[in-house]
């Protein structure tokens, strides 16, 4: 194997490609050839480093210097100064809070430990970073019940939003009668503002494969599905490649690690429907039907795909499994809060300086996320509200910024962590105007199967739209509350139940502003066209 004196990592992810990462990489390679450095300096394509505003990112080892954003025009200087003469190009340096050079706060990377640092298209790099060690340990040294115990003791909660204990879900599936059993990875990430699963899969696809095989071993299943959104073309490509490589190495297929355990993974591409992120709708969709949720119970662990016991876990949940197996449940519990172990991956968006992806221990407050990781709000504007958990999440005013963000504390405060999207809005945003796209979204995405959701989402949108035009009626707020509460109590699945959340929380915290629209026919911020 050739040895290189320096490695240059170029971020090739969906954001960077949009900003010319491929051209940057090609120019870099050309330039290195020109200076005959191509035998000394290796250029590698990685995925994201969590930085999405200033992309493409170039990371140079061994110095661990990060340059961002890099343009084609900058390549000359980087090659001539840094790679040829060994002088760092100061004007392009970018500090990344989690890179150990200058730690800003405790960003702990469990799920994203490899993302951006290994080549996602090479299984060898994953293996070199402890990849498939957990799987080997499981199939060679452990019994299924022991695996279940480790996961249960780790206190890992589902990261898709519902926070159901993963160990318990696996246990139910193991005990349920019926063969074959199925393992499904839910990568139908469609919650607006959420793209953590995409970046996990783009940056470290083998981790999910390893976790699915471990889950299969623990519950007694031999077939897994990854349900990937149809829009995620790069993810589909990388997972396909990873599955092939894992097969060739004997980590998938028959006699895994020489044991008598067999496991296969199939890819199922979605075709565009938000509701398919709901686990029973997702199962219907794999069966080739309209993605309409089923009545529950029975839940998937007893009655899932083709009516058989099925584990459905979110990508981020799976991503925690290999490190938990390797390091043990007590290690995992060192991160986060007492009730919610581990870390959470967030996407920070909206009116914020540093948009992007972070992974921090459970329990960090939103205020810290905004000020430290997000680097504050652009301009001299003030914070007005945040929406946590994507479009179905609750709206949080300034007064709630110090609530520790873990599933239990957020629920007690009447909010939800959901998928981990954090939409930050400054003082120029009007609450009614913000509710418009939120309610329109549910009106559009409701599958129409159950009445409260089908009728409720339409009514709510119409009322909000009418208020924003100055046509609000005196009874509108109580009508919104009535409909929302009915939907929350009677809808068949999480979509209808959660559709009410932003409306109810907006009324709770910003009632005055909505009332001004209705009674005075004025938008105090001049956003709505009344």
């Amino acid at each position, binding site marked *: 194997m050739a040895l290189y004196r320096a490695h240059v990592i170029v971020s090739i992810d969906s954001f960077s490609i949009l900003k010319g990462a491929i051209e940057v990489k090609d120019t870099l390679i050309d330039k290195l050839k020109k200076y005959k450095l191509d035998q000394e300096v290796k250029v590698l394509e990685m995925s994201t480093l969590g930085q999405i505003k200033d992309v493409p990112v170039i990371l140079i080892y061994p110095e661990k210097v990060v340059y961002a954003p890099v343009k084609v025009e900058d390549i000359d200087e980087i090659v001539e100064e840094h790679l040829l003469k060994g002088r760092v190009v100061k004007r392009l340096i970018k500090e990344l809070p989690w890179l150990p050079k200058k730690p800003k706060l405790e960003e702990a990377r469990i799920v994203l430990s490899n993302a951006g640092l290994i080549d996602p298209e090479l299984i060898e790099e994953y293996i070199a970073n402890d990849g498939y060690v957990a799987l080997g340990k499981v199939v060679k040294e452990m019994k299924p019940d022991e695996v279940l115990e480790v996961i249960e003791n780790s206190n890992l909660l589902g990261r898709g939003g519902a926070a159901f204990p993963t160990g318990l879900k696996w246990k139910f599936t193991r005990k349920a009668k019926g063969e074959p059993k199925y393992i499904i990875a839910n990568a139908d990430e469609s919650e607006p503002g959420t793209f953590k699963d*995409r970046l996990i899969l783009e940056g470290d696809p083998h981790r999910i494969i390893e976790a699915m095989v471990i889950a299969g071993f623990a519950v007694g299943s031999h077939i897994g599905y990854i349900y990937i959104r149809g*829009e995620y073309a790069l993810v589909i490509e990388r997972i396909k490649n990873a599955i092939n490589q894992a097969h060739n190495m004997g980590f998938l297929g028959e006699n895994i690690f020489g044991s008598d355990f067999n496991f296969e993974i199939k890819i199922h591409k*979605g075709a*565009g429907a938000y509701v398919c992120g709901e686990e029973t709708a997702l199962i219907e969709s794999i069966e080739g039907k309209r993605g309409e949720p089923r009545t529950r119970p029975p839940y998937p662990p007893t009655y899932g795909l083709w009516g058989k016991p099925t584990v459905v876990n979110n990508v981020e949940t799976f991503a925690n499994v290999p490190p938990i197996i390797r390091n043990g449940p007590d290690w995992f519990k060192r991160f986060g809060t007492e009730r919610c172990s581990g870390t959470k991956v967030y996407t920070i968006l909206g009116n914020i300086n540093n948009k992007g992806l972070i992974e921090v221990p459970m329990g960090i407050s939103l205020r810290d996320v905004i000020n430290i990781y997000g680097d504050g709000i652009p301009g001299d504007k003030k914070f007005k509200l945040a929406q946590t958990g994507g479009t179905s999440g609750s709206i949080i005013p300034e007064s709630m910024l110090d609530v520790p963000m873990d599933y239990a504390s957020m629920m007690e405060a009447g909010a939800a962590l959901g998928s981990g999207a954090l939409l930050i809005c400054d003082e120029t945003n009007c609450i009614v105007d913000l509710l418009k796209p939120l309610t329109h979204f549910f009106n559009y995405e409701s599958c129409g199967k159950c009445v409260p959701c089908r009728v409720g989402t339409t009514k709510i949108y119409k009322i909000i739209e009418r208020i924003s035009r100055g046509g609000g009626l005196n009874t509108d707020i109580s009508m919104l509350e009535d409909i929302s509460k009915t939907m929350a109590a009677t809808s068949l699945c999480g979509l209808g139940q959660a559709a009410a959340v932003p409306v109810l929380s907006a009324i709770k915290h910003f009632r005055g502003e909505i009332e001004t629209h209705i009674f005075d026919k004025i938008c105090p911020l001049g956003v709505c066209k009344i």
Partner: protein
Amino acid sequence: MERKINLEKANEIMKKHGNNPEKLIEVLSELNSEYGYLPKKVLKQVSKFFDLPLSRIYGTSSFYTMLVTEPLGENIIRFCENAPCHVVGAPEVLESLEKELGIKIGETTKDKKFTILTTSCIGICGVGPVMIINNDVYGNLKPEDIPRILANYK
């Protein structure tokens, strides 16, 4: 005007995947990109091949946003209207887009060149507002960018 539809390609695609219902959505997706939409004639063929009622095939076809049952314009613009794009200026961009083409969301221009649809969040909120034309993604949009971008497709 219904174009003449050649079923040979459809049969080929179906044969390649087999008739396990698990493959239905994948087959429909491929047929959709082959024909530009899912014509009734093709859906009837799918129904026969999978041995499932046409209503069931149509039900699946009409459910998903990436499958369409009516012919659309030559270029399909999918505009993101979700909240993360909304708070960074999507409404103004959409207004410019609708004005430039003289159509609203869901409509097709008279010359059949463009259709505007919405897209669910494609997770590149970091560069919002975002739209996709065919397979090209455009981010960080400003209202004044629209004429220049559309010119590439005229």
